[in-house]
């Protein structure tokens, strides 16, 4: 259970990275606690970096352990909306942990995962959607994923959804006005314009949803199965793509039995590679179980690499690429030619994989990556489609509105709820209503 009026501390940079590491404190005592950690005398100037040394024990005689830069961000203009101090130290995990522990000794509490973001959200510094983006950012493994999360944080997606939401809101307000103020002599919505306006909105949610598959792939990563006859060099190729000798390679056909997986970064895409047993008829129990698993892996993969040597390709999986391995030897010319041993053609193979997956990253196209968001936009889309149908059948406005309001509710769950008076305000600001 979180409390939001004490001071929390945690390492803010991802674990295990070199260079600079940051410890962040947030809460009413952030400033005071920091001053008791550093040798610097006097208070910290807001938003100015102060170079000082940090002493991590309460023992006054002890040597300072590191030189650090501390920066104070007084409330409310800070990441969390509370007083925040950031301590940048050299990124050794040992030092960072020591600083955190020292802060705890002086009255701070170790933050729960996500607690800084929770405070930012509770203090109204970020909206729900951005709060989720922060979590994505922290989880991000590869640069592209980080960027998709970052886009969301910066607002590409927020802007796209806000755009749809604002247009929908205006339409809803006008329809509500026509219902509530029937004798004001206004056409709040021009006759005939309603259907078109709703179709346009449905088109925009549809576009977001179309992007969602791509977004989801970026977020959750893809599975690529490597299959083929025994000894064609699947495990060798797997190791080459993974950049490590993960799978056993021998010249004995049937070496690989179990599925071997490795997460790799393929030009920014997070991909799970699956090495499999060579496909062949066999009465050997262990091997036949391996073949069975290989087929299943191929069936569920986003893409199958069918590796061939001198044999014919056995086509499995709905989406596949034929990879001609051992191109350093005399081999037929088909599919993508590579050599797992020399590394020739591997770049071509990576490009071919990206092309086959159809996930070319586009920087400025907003990508819905969060399952919850996809579900909400989907709900909005279904409601908009239904509203469009009702408008086309000339149903009275209040029925069209029932669905439009539902769409609005779904979008506002992403972009944040409006105050209930907002609708009337919108109407009164635009139309002279009342007697």
């Amino acid at each position, binding site marked *: *259970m979180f409390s*939001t009026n004490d001071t929390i501390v945690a390492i803010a940079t991802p674990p295990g990275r070199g260079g600079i590491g940051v410890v962040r404190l947030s809460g009413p005592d952030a400033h005071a606690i920091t001053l008791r950690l550093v040798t610097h005398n006097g208070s910290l100037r807001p938003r100015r970096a102060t170079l000082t040394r940090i002493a991590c024990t309460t023992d006054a005689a002890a040597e300072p352990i590191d030189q650090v830069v501390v920066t104070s961000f007084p409330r409310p203009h800070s990441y969390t909306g509370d007083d925040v101090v950031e301590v940048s130290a050299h990124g050794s995990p040992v030092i960072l942990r020591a600083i955190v522990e020292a802060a705890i000794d002086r009255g701070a509490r170790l933050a729960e995962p996500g607690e800084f973001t929770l405070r930012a959200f*509770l203090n109204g510094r970020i909206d729900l959607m951005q709060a989720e983006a922060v979590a994505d950012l922290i989880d991000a493994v590869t640069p592209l994923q980080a960027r998709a999360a970052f886009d969301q944080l910066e607002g590409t997606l927020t802007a796209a959804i806000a755009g749809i939401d604002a247009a929908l809101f205006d339409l809803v307000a006008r329809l509500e006005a026509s219902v509530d103020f029937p004798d004001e002599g206004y056409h709040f919505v021009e006759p005939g314009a309603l259907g078109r306006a709703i179709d346009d909105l449905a088109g925009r949610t549809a576009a977001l949803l179309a992007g969602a598959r791509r977004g989801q792939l970026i977020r959750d990563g893809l599975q690529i199965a490597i299959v083929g006859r025994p000894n064609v060099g699947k495990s060798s190729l797997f190791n080459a793509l993974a950049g490590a000798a993960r799978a056993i390679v021998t010249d004995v056909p049937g070496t690989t039995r179990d599925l071997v997986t490795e997460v790799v970064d393929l030009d920014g895409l997070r991909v799970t590679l699956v090495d499999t047993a060579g496909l062949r008829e066999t009465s050997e129990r262990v091997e036949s179980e391996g073949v069975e698993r290989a087929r299943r892996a191929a069936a569920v993969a986003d893409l199958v690499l069918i590796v061939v040597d001198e044999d014919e390709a056995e086509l499995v999986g709905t989406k596949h690429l034929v990879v001609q391995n051992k191109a350093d030897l005399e081999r037929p010319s088909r599919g993508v030619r590579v050599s797992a041993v020399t590394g020739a053609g591997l770049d071509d193979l990576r490009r071919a994989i990206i092309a086959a997956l159809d996930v070319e990253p586009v920087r400025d196209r907003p990508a819905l990556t969060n399952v919850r968001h996809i579900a909400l936009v989907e709900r909005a889309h279904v409601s908009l489609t239904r509203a469009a149908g009702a408008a086309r059948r000339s149903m009275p406005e209040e*029925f069209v509105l029932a669905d439009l309001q539902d769409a609005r509710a779904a979008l506002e769950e992403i972009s944040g709820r409006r105050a209930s008076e907002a609708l009337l305000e919108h109407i009164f600001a635009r139309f002279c209503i009342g007697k």
Partner: protein
Amino acid sequence: MKQHFDVIVIGAGHAGCEAAHAAARLGAHVGLCTLSTDTVAHMPCNPAVGGTAKGHLVREIDAIGGLMGRAIDATGIQFKLLNRSRGPAVWSPRAQADKKMYGRWVKHALDAEANVEWLIGKAGRILVSGERVVGLALEGADEYACEALVMTTGTFLNGLIHIGPDQHAAGRAGEPPSRELAESLKSLGFEWGRLKTGTPPRLDRESIDFDRHADDGTFAVERGDMPPVPFSFLSGAIDRPQIDCYLVHTNDRVRDLVRANIDRSPLFNGQIRGIGPRYCPSLEDKIVRFPDKERHQIFLEPEGVDAREIYVNGFSMSLPRDVQADLVHALPGLEDAVLLRPGYAVEYDFIQPTELTRRLETKRVRGLFLAGQINGTSGYEEAAAQGLVAGINAAHRALGREGFELHRDESYIGILVDDLITKGCLEPYRMFTSRAEHRLLLRIDNADLRLTPRGRDAGLVDNERWDRFCRRRSRFDRNLCVLETTPLRASSGDRVPAAQLLRQPEIRLVDLIAQGVVPHFESEPSSAAIDIASAETTIKYAGYLRRQQAEIERSRKDERRRIPPAFPFERVPGLSREVVQRLNQVRPDTLGQALRIPGVTPAAVAVLASYVGRFTPHPNML
């Protein structure tokens, strides 16, 4: 010894009359304290009842057993069902009243209640002992004891009227303000504010040649519906003579006059500080805030069948009297009109309704109830609806009964009360259908199906109304049955149940009835439109209704989940200081209400929810 009442009601406006009537009907001995019996249920502004959403309120008041619906049916002189071109969910009745007759009708209705005793005088001081109301002192001397006190003093608390630069203290034109009472109330510690409203000038009917201007097209004639659709579920056909109203438009001359004199408008020169309703803009507001709008509608409405006054709807203002006359004369056809009374603006104190519970009882003083404009609302219907709720609960309080609450998902009255007690008022509050989340279910045709059983439980529905309701409910059920079972020939040639045919948008039940193909469909002659609407809506829009009903069921668990009265919000970890402060101010009784408090985030309510669960171990407390 002081005379003792179960319930004292201060004010015989629309709120006070409903409150006194309801409390008396429940068996409470009621003292109705008012300045004069000449202004009972007076309409200081527009002589009309109903309108979008307001018409819903009146139907609901009637369904529960209140007065307003019957009063307007008995005295209405032009009836219109608004939004008829739309679906039945947003149909709203509206009627012009014969203003004098309306007041007299309500006075008679109260005179007929043996439990109501008039206390003519000026209420001055609320008597409180140990955070409990014990009585009322009139200005002067007399003191009365009571168990519950309902205050419905409208615009009278420190009322201040503005006509141009002239200001004088008054509750309404020609009536004294209530100062002592205002101070007595404030001394109890209530949060209060100041609002403003206004009314247009009245013209002399004799000075306007309506026939000529209607003939030559200067005035557009506005007729009512024939036959009128009554408000009350008890009313038969309305056959009183009906009147016409007239529509004119403002012109450039009106615009120029307003602009030239804008610095003489107390609204614009800083003389008025109270906040007015944006949905009832003054003429000054219309011209200044919407310079692009070329002309504004003005309705000329007789205040009664024989009344001398013509109400100039849409022309409310607080400019000096001479400018008002010039403005009237600038309107087409009114060149020679005589101004009987100028329009004016009035500022008054109100109490922030966040001080109240869902029963409209103050949280600070047990037994003290507030209803009507004193709570920041505006409009007769909003006042009456609150009066009804407060009156029932005051009687329940005095007689030791359990209390009566209406919720958002069952009524507009519930929405009204919930909005008031949750959000307070920053400007005068009026009801709109867009405030209803589940509008399709809250229709005028089913107000009785929704609420008459509630009124019966509360004790306000008498046997006559109840019998009638039971007949109507079984008629409704039979009608659905008839439509499900009467086979009709579809365009395909197949014979299908009438209900199936009705689901096609272009097939209308009225037409089927007119063609005589559903002979077993029953309806009361005076409410045929309602009987038909109830059945048709239920069938034609079944999908929509089902979905809204499902939403209500889904949310009801949280929506109605009780927060115990003494729940310590400050002890819930994770809530910001601001949120705790808002929660403590409003003290929501349900999680649903907590979620609607401005500034309380969904995340905060999620946290709250987990704690409320722990503080209420007994399922019967939920």
